[in-house]
Each structure stands twice: as C-alpha cells, then as structure tokens.
C-alpha cells in the first residue's frame, strides 16, 4: 500500500490525461506470461517429459492412474489451501485437521454404533466448526494466521492422539468396515472405476469438480473478487465495504471443508484411521499452491495452478519410484521445486506490480 502511494513520486510526470503510451508494450505474450498458472504448467510438461524418458513404467496406464490418485488426495486439500493463500492467510493445521475429521467420523460412528453417514455428518459440522474457530481466532486476536494455526495444529495433533487412545486404548480407531452405510459411503468417497481402460479413483473426479467450482468462484463471483481483495490489500478492501473478517473466516472454513472431504476418503478407503497421521502434510498442500503460482503474501494465484502443483507433486512422488531411484530423495526434489517456483513467482509479482 505504501508502495502504491509513493510510487507516483519517483515517476516522470505523464503529460495530462490521455492514453498511456506504456500500454502498447503489454503484448498478448506478456499477458500470457502474467497468468499465475503458466510457470507451473511449463514445469508440469517438463517433468512429464522427463519422467517419460527416464522411467519406462511411467507411461503405463496403471502408473498414470497411481499418479493421478496421489495428485488428487493432495489436490483436494490444495484447493482450499490455495483459496486461503490468495486470501492472504496460512493454515498450518490443515494436515492434522484431515486426521481429526476422519477420527471424528470413525470414532462417533463406532462408539455410538451409528450409521456411518451419521458420523460423516457429525464430522462435517465439527470440522467446519474447527475451521471457523481458526478463522475467529485469527480475526479476534489479529495475530498472524501462521501463529494461530500453528497453535491449533499442535492442539489438534494432541487431541487426535489423546482422544483416540482414551476411547479405543489404541493409536488407531476401530474398523468401521462392517457398520451400516459403509458401502454406500465408500462408493461416494473411496470407490474407483474404469475410464477407457484406465482405473480412475473417484477422488480424481471430486478433485476436478472442486477445482472447477473454486475457479468459478474465484473468477466469476463477487466472493472471488473479495478473496483476491482481502489477500491483496485488506485495508483497501475494508475501506470500500468488503466484509474482510467474514471472507477470511469463510476461507478457513473452506480449508476445513476440503479437510473433511479428505478425511472421509481416509475413513472409507482404509476403514481405520491412524491418529498420528497428517502431521507435515500441511506443508505439502502449501507447496502445491505455491508451485501453482499462489503468492505467499496473498492476493494472487489460482485454483487451477494449485491443481497443476498437486499434479507436479503426484508425478514427482510416484515418478521417482518408477524411475527406480531411491525415494529418500523425493523431499530434496520437492524442496528444490518449491525454491524454483517461489523465485519464478517473485519475478512475476515484480513485473505485475512494476509501476515505472
């Protein structure tokens, strides 16, 4: 904001009102380069070609379906996380929130001997409440969301383990496989199907649907406009009447919704939930969003970019296995890609914001 206010000083004065001769320089190519997804898309194509060459198994239909599945499980969370990041905030509790959500469904259904759909519904309500709590804590305390969600991250991680052990005497929830409604819930959250000879997990379809909905919201609705605005400059947004706090709380709840969905996938794919899972995943979601062009400072990014980021993540994750490399190196590549993506994003932002 200070940048915007002060930029006029150093500038050579423009002669009166009238067409700005600098506009002519903005060619279609430059406009394409300004898209947040572009860097990620080029990276995805490069990685795809790379793994196709070095790993014979990579191009097989079965491998591709595995890559897509891995991408979708992270991609679904990356949708919510990327919207939140465009809105200028972080959620470090997103990883364990998935586990909390899954545990809530599995534990309530098992302990109370309910139809699993009741557990699913209770989990939805409580997970959204946790998301709202993150948002409210942020809005009320005005602490950085990084700190607020770091606190809730540890609290939830402790609760997951403590409550599960107290109820089951074990670190995992009891199996809900034989309970009423399991098969229908599994069909919704964790089934698979054949599409043109390729086995496609249902999470892939949900992922694509979520990305499409998020993209529509971002680019075609008032809510989307507000998300960009609260991330780009919250004070400016407030000054023109955007309900900044409501938008931010809504974004935290969006992450919670995605966490709920991912949690339900865990429950119905494996029937039991390990209470210690999810720790560290929050960084992977953020990496997907950042590789996909979301700025860490907010106000810029796209859901499609985050989806491409998740696809890059899935390709690298599985590609290393197909190339028969030591998978220990995976994290090194992830870190390197994050670094490259952030440098590219910084360059993009500088170009977009350049005022001289």
């Amino acid at each position: 904001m200070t940048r915007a206010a002060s930029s006029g000083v150093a500038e050579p004065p423009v002669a009166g009102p009238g067409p700005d001769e600098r506009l002519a320089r903005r060619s279609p190519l430059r406009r394409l380069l300004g898209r947040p997804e572009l860097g990620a898309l080029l990276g995805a194509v490069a990685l795809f070609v790379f793994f196709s060459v070095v790993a014979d198994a990579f191009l097989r239909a079965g491998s591709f379906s595995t890559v897509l599945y891995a991408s979708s499980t992270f991609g679904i969370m990356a949708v919510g996380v990327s919207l939140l990041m465009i809105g200028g905030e972080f959620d470090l509790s997103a990883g364990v929130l998935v586990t909390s959500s899954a545990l809530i469904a599995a534990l309530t259904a098992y302990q109370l001997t309910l139809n699993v759909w009741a557990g699913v519904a209770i989990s939805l309500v409580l997970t959204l409440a946790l998301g709202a709590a993150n948002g409210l804590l942020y809005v009320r305390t005005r602490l950085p969301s990084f700190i607020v969600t770091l606190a809730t991250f540890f609290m939830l991680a402790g609760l997951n383990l403590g409550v599960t052990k107290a109820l089951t005497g074990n670190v995992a929830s009891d199996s809900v496989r034989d309970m009423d409604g399991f098969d229908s819930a599994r069909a919704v959250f964790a089934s698979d199907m054949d599409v043109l000879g390729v086995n496609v997990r249902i999470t892939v379809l949900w992922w694509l649907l979520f990305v499409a909905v998020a993209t529509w919201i971002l680019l075609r609705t008032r809510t989307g406009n507000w998300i960009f605005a609260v991330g780009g400059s919250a004070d400016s947004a407030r000054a023109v009447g955007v309900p900044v706090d409501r938008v931010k709380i809504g974004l935290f709840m969006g992450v919670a919704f995605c966490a709920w969905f991912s949690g339900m996938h865990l429950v119905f794919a494996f029937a039991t939930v390990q209470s210690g899972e999810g720790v560290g995943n929050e960084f992977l979601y953020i990496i997907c969003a950042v590789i996909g062009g979301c700025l860490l400072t907010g106000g810029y990014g796209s859901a499609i970019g985050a989806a491409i980021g998740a696809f890059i993540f899935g390709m690298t994750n599985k590609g290393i296995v197909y190339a028969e490399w030591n998978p220990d190196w995976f994290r090194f590549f992830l870190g390197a890609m994050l670094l490259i993506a952030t440098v590219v994003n910084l360059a993009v932002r500088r170009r977009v914001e350049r005022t001289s």
Partner: protein
Amino acid sequence: MTGTDQPLIRLTGVGKSHGAVIALRDVDLEASAGEVTCVLGDNGAGKSTLIKIVAGLHRHDTGTYEVQGEKVEFGSPREALDRGIATVYQDLAVVPLMPVWRNFFLGSEKRRRFGRLDIVSMRETARREMAAMGVDLRDVDQPIGTLSGGERQCVAIARAVHFGARALVLDEPTAALGVKQAGVVLRYIVRARERGLAVVFITHNPHHAYPVGDRFLILNRGRSIGDHNKDEITREELTALMAGGGELEELARELDVAGD
C-alpha cells in the same frame, strides 16, 4: 427537511479522543453541493481523524454529524456510502494486483443470475467512466498497480462518482504526486464540483487548496484555527495561517538574520 439550502454534510462541535490523546476537539465542518471545502493542516493536526469520522471509519465522541439536516452515527464506511458519502483515501483503497475494472467495482459488484459477475458490463462501464474523466484506458484488465499515481487517483474518483456519490471526500490526493500529476488531479476535483458534488479536499498544501477551494477550514493540534470563505482570505494569509502564522514570520526573520 432536505431543502437545497441545507449543507450536505455538517459537523458541529465534533471531538474525538484515542485513549488519552485528544485527536480532535470542537471542530465544525460544512460541505455543500457544488462546492469544494478544503481542510488544511500540518501533520498531526487532526485531518485524518476528521476524515475518518466523515467516512464512517470512526465514530465521533462529542458533537453532531448531520447529513442533509439529519443526524447520523455511522457504524461503517458502508453506511456512509449508502448516504452518498464516498471517501478516496491517501493510499487510494485499491488493490494493486487486481485489474482496473475489478478495483472499480470492488465492494459494489454487478451480478447476474446465480451470483455470476456481469463482467462484460463492468469492464465496459469502467472503461467508459474513466474516459468521461479524461483517462483513456485501452486495457481495463491491467493490474491497477501498473497505472501512474495520478491515474490511480482518477480511478478512485471516477469510481466514487459512478456509484452515485453526492459528497466526495479526498484524503491528501495530491500529496504523493509530482507537479503535473497533481494538476491533473486538481482538474478532476473541479470537474467533480461542476457535476454538482460536494467535495471535501484534505491537503497540507495551500497552493493546491487555494485555486480549487470555495471554503477553507484550517486545523492545528486537533482544533479549528480558521474557517473562511474564499473571498475572505488571500493565498498568502492562508499559507501563513496554515504554518501557524506568527511562527512562520518568526522563522522568516530568523532565516533573514542567519543570511546576513
């Protein structure tokens, strides 16, 4: 009640304190349609506080705030906007990374069925309104951060005018601009006045205020130290008053002595 002789905005005896700090004490302000009311003062004189009260960001502690003779207590800038009072802030209240047209309609988006944004019409309107203000933007999709300071100011003013503002509050619109660009903005202020708006123009520069102003309110340390019509005061008197009158003369004498 809403006779034309009523000033659009009238603040009477308004005061505001932030904890132990009294930011504003017993200040009157009037702004009428087709007039430019300038609020002058040095840094810390209380200009910003006054403007935030008018804009609905702060609530006044004492005194009254009337809009067309009706007492108001605004809880948010939105409420002030609904009464036709639009404020253009020093930092412009724009989001640099967002396209011009999205900034133009931010907070007042046009929508069609199912909450879908009416993008075609918003783009066109933004382009047209900017042209009416004398800025021909070929590409309303460019991020507003790529515009010059004067042009950004112009977007903010055009936005306020488009959304039916009857009173325009401009917070230091020329402070960060070069000489020529400041001139451009002053021209928009005159244009807004000609369109029948009540303009409240906050500045610390009497040379910007005097050519466009019809009335001048001078603040110092949170108090009003002068409220004059244009025919009652010369540019020199205004400058002297703003700098604290005697203080400036003393300074001039001091510098003269030093120069000898």
